[in-house]
């Protein structure tokens, strides 16, 4: 949907209507569960859910390593059972998938995506919601009491990751390519640090609303206005799908924290090394302000004293 929103209130209504489409009820073995963010599921949710429930023994709540002497091998086997089951579905990409089916039905499902989601959810269950030591804030707090509910959570996480990718991709921070233009409102204006933009959006949502990976987001006008103002500030057209992914992100703002001085120093050093290797000399990649300026070595006497 290509809409130019004149104000935050108009955008808020469309965002809420989109959020209302989040939950889809699925059923297996007589148990009804809700899978969220189903707007991002370009496949038959009911069929995929049934397949994972009935054709595998995978349970995201259990430690996948517990029956193994060699953890790596067991984990690999458990997740491969999951991916092997879904690969039989007609809408799943695989070695034997029918491309004509994807083209005709517009249904796509990547086994790698469900494996990534399964690892994330399993980590959340085993570490009480803490997904990693670095980004230790609890972004996902799974609470399934049955295996079916846990598998519904698995699909919710998978959809959430897809939504997040759609939202962050436009800034090119993780994957993609950073693009800026003062004329094109599909990208930020020149001069903005993209990491700072994503950090600002994610932090604002985290502070005012909170990341809701496992449930449907429900932003107020106040939150939406704050996000609208950020997009307005960076000269970029706001879109419902562009924002939704930040609400359901599995990681917090810390993940996008812009480089600090040490990080920039390291990247500059790497740049120097790369440049010198390519050009075959040891000149700095930083240009002199003036050709008449003395070389850096001549100033050593000042620094040594």
């Amino acid at each position, binding site marked *: 949907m290509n809409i130019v929103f004149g104000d935050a*209130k108009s955008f*808020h*209504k469309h965002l*809420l*209507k989109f*959020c*209302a*489409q*989040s*939950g889809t009820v699925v059923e297996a073995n007589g148990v009804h569960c*809700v899978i969220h963010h189903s707007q991002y599921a370009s496949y038959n949710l009911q069929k995929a859910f049934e397949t994972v429930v009935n054709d595998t023994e995978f349970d995201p709540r259990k430690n996948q390593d517990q029956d193994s002497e060699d953890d790596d091998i067991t984990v690999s086997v458990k997740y491969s059972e999951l991916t092997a089951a879904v690969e039989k579905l007609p809408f799943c990409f695989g070695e034997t998938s029918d491309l004509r089916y994807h083209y005709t039905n517009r249904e796509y499902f990547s086994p790698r995506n469900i494996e990534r989601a399964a690892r994330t959810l399993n980590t959340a269950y085993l570490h009480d919601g803490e997904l990693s030591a670095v980004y230790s804030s609890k972004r996902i707090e799974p609470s399934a009491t049955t295996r079916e509910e846990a598998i519904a959570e698995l699909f919710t996480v998978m959809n959430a990751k897809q939504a997040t990718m759609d939202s962050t991709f436009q800034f090119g921070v993780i994957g993609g390519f950073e693009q800026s233009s003062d004329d094109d409102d599909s990208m930020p204006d020149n001069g903005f640090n993209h990491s700072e933009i994503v950090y600002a959006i994610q932090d604002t949502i985290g*502070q*005012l609303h909170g990341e809701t990976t496992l*449930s*449907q987001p*429900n*932003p*107020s*006008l*106040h*939150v939406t206005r704050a996000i609208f103002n950020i997009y307005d500030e960076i000269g970029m057209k706001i879109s419902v799908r562009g924002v939704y992914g930040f609400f359901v992100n599995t990681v917090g703002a810390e993940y996008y924290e812009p480089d600090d001085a040490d990080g920039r120093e390291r990247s500059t050093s790497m740049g120097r090394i790369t440049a010198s290797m390519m050009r075959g000399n040891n000149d700095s990649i930083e240009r002199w302000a003036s050709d008449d300026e003395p070389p850096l070595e001549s100033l050593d006497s000042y620094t040594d004293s």
Partner: protein
Amino acid sequence: MYENETESVGYAECEHCSIRTEVYLTKHGLRCETCKNNQPEPIATYTPDVRDYVDTRGEEMAENIEAFKDELPEIGFDIELEDGSVYEMDKMESHALLMKHGENWKQFIPAFIEHVAKHFDDQTEPTKFSMNADWGTSNHEKSQSAYETHAELAPVVVYPALRAAKMQLSLMAMNGPPTEDETSDDNSTPSVIGMGDSELNVYSKHGRITVDHSILEQEGTDMDDIDFFGENGGDEE
């Protein structure tokens, strides 16, 4: 709820009770029929410390002004205007007049009477920026589309002349009584002005200062000496 959005937008979790049911669009998010008019608690804000903050400064200032008015000496001018009606200048305006014109207050009053008569005859009233606004257009709270006596027009005419002095008095009043630190300052403002038969008295913590204004009672004082509305035709900010 948003105006003109009375229809449900589908089944989803209510923002307030978290039950999955039929929901409606509201400013607070998707709400069910039961919760759609409930206010969120607490109100979302970036600064949680100010959630319970109650600003009492307005009330304190209002109390200070009342106390300041009570402390002012009972000075008021009853001015008989050209048509025989009497304008009773209130206490704050009288003190503002004395503050601004000091010992020239006796020259101000005939000038003021003349200005009121002129505005009445021309059917105009002064504003902050103009001397010739039509009746009822000066935005003064007592401005009317028609006046029967000079006394009705008088408060509108006197306001631009004493505006800055009244503001200064009000600022002094709002700040309340000086604190110990402020009273230790040698340049603290005198707080009481008094009038005798032939002198003005200023009462401060250092005692009474008397200024003889008998010289002003001399006959033939030229009214043009009075800068009624200031040099620029209006009062200074």
